[in-house]
């Protein structure tokens, strides 16, 4: 039987780099990214799972980092916005966001991009209606939705 502890030792692979971390039992993945790994690209919006700004891929699937307890993620892989570009070149989805002007203030953009990467991997970006439904977990208070959908259409149909 494992006895409850205030601090939990976990191994986490973040953007291809493995880390050993001692995290507070009540810390979220979002807090660990910010406070232990100095990865500030993943944004804290509502901190309640409503806005999607903190979306990351956990073992390849999109999740809200604010609702994921770090202690539960021992041995798992996380991809954040900092790990999306390769060898200094933007990911085609990042390039599409720029080409389509799919942002204004940009605060929701890392979460939008991570969520769209998850959506494309799920094979769910086959129509604009499907993209709109499946991006419902990501809010954009600047209202760049039309251009976000266009960027995802471009990236989903182009070579990845």
């Amino acid at each position: 039987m494992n006895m409850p502890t205030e601090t939990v030792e976990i191994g986490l692979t973040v953007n291809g780099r493995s880390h050993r971390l001692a995290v507070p039992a009540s810390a979220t993945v979002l807090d660990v990214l910010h406070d232990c790994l100095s990865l500030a690209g993943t944004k804290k919006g509502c901190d309640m799972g409503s806005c999607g700004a903190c979306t990351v891929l956990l073992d390849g699937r999109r999740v809200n980092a604010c609702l994921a307890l770090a202690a539960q993620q021992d041995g798992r892989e996380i991809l954040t916005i900092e790990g999306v570009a390769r060898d200094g070149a933007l990911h085609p989805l990042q390039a599409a966001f720029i080409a389509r002007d799919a942002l204004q203030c940009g605060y929701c953009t890392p979460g939008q991009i991570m969520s769209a990467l998850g959506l494309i991997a799920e094979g769910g970006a086959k129509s604009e209606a499907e993209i709109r439904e499946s991006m419902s977990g990501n809010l954009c208070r600047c209202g760049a939705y039309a251009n976000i959908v266009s960027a995802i259409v471009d990236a989903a149909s182009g070579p990845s």
Partner: protein
Amino acid sequence: MTSPFAYARAADTQDAVRLAAQPGTAFLAGGTDFLQLWKAGLAAPSRVIDIGRLALDRIEVRDGVLVIGALTRLADAAGHPSIRHELPGLAQALLASASPQVRNMATVGGNLMQRTRCLYFRGADFACNKRAPGSGCSAIEGENRQHAILGTSSACVATHPSDLAVALVALGASLHLRGVAGERRVALEDFFLLPGDTSERETVLMAGELLVAVEVPRTPQRSAYLKLRDRASFEFAVVSACVAAQVRDDRIETIRLAAGGVATRPWRLKACEAALAGARLDDAMLRAASVLAAEGARPLGGNGFKVELLQRTVHRLLADTLVPPPTSP
């Protein structure tokens, strides 16, 4: 406002149940509802038992029943071939739940155990019998557009928020509950309690008892879930309904109906069922039976519209799902 908790990972179900015997303990699965409650100061366990890695995340297709492990993610359940093909109403309810991100984390068991979205419960500045027994109910005389019209009491009018539970009640599901003394089975509709004057007690689950599986009959039948909400997606139901029915020629042979967004627990529509079972399909009959959905409704100041909306939701669901009848085999 938040108080730190200690963490332990359960090695197996027995270990989990044993660890949970101590007061101040909470089970942790997907964490999506728990962390919201904890951050809002509404859950303050001294320790959490992580059950997330127990082997309860499988869906077994057996003769006559589907056994869905309580730790199955909502997204995985929605994508399972047997659920998609045999129980479309269940798949639709799953896909109408939360957001894709949450569906990748949240579990079937956790979804059934989620707490109400009543703003007075979630906002700690108001009286709420569910949060602080005996403090009163702020919703009865307050903002109650989203609240229940059925199953209410003078202590609580909060709705049960789960889409999944509504579909599972219509499909006649039961739960497997594991405690230190062994396992027992409870019909889902008997699992949820009416608020009465103990609205803080929401289910028959005993302290330390763990929900391990959901069993759903694989009855060959039509099923569908219809959810109406204030925006197109990622929102709780204003009104929802699920039907599961066997139709032969133009006659309804068996039917079960349940509604969400309108009641303090997933609400079986027995008066509608009684009017529909054995009846010949025609729109006037469906319309007349749908009116019975609101039987016993007691609307509050801000939610009287739910009476007619519920009746119309049930009618549209029945008309879309049962008409035209299939050609007989």
